[in-house]
């Protein structure tokens, strides 16, 4: 039974069941053990993730083409933002932080506080080209010898 305490203008509820009632402090795994388990799966998960990138590139390219030809609208802007958002959120998880950075750049360039007519399509195109290159060459992060020009290009590709 939840205990409810009346206050002036509001109530404080003390739920009976909390996460503590379901989580023991014995018999569990260490964080190190959990991470080892995850490491064993990461190679396969990363391959699946990379296999999905061509479809992402196609979606971005299709939306961008429409906008470049003057035939796109809010739906295309939202499609670009959504793909950028997903890249931003997952690149790092699959050990491809540069993809995450590219995604973040696309998000910044297509967020809903930018009017459709003010979209910097050329910069978005640069990000798409960088994504295609990074995916093809499997450039994960700044320790890759091929990463330096990509990182420099991303820094240049920020809106002024």
């Amino acid at each position: 039974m939840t205990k409810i305490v009346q206050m002036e203008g509001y109530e404080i509820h003390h739920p009976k069941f909390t996460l503590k009632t379901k989580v023991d402090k014995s018999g569990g795994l260490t964080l190190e053990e959990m991470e080892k388990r995850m490491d064993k799966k990461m190679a396969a998960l990363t391959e699946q993730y990379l296999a999905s990138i061509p479809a992402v590139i196609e979606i971005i390219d299709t939306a961008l083409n429409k906008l470049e030809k003057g035939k796109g609208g809010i739906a295309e802007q939202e499609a670009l933002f959504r793909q950028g958002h997903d890249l931003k959120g997952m690149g790092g998880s699959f050990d491809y932080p540069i993809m995450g950075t590219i995604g973040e750049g696309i998000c910044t360039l297509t967020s809903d506080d930018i009017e459709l007519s003010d979209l910097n399509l050329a910069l978005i195109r640069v990000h798409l080209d960088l994504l295609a290159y990074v995916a093809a060459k499997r450039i994960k992060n700044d320790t890759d010898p091929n990463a330096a020009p990509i990182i420099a290009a991303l820094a240049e590709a920020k809106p002024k």
Partner: protein
Amino acid sequence: MANYYNFRNLSVIFVDDNRNMHMLMKSILLAMNIVNARGCYDAKSCLAKMLEDPADIVILDLSLNPENGLDLIRRIRQGERGVDAYTPILVVSGQTKLSNVVEARDAGATEFLAKPVSVGSLYDRLVWMVENPRVFIKASEFIGPDRRRAMRGYEGMERRK
């Protein structure tokens, strides 16, 4: 036996509209020994699953389709269709501006974790949520976990008075 958090009995529902995220989250949860994990892609199926079999924690993204995650949080907090309004809700999102975190808090989220997510970051948040349960506040314009304590990782953010 050493004392380490045993998450095996936890039941989790996670909500994200991206298949890769499902693949990743399922693997992370399994690595943490959380075997009872159900994934869904939108708000409607999340609420249906919560009714079918209540979850101990809901993990959700803010960018869902067609409804967004904030609406789902509010619907859970209203106890829509009889779901448990007190269910702990962890937002896992790539929308990480302070305004996004504040919006999630004000919608009724319990905690917030920025993407990209890893075993380590999710472990940290779950342990925090286990060790630091929040009471619930019900007021005319808000129902959800007490906002007067900052969310983990956002201790400097504007606090509710």
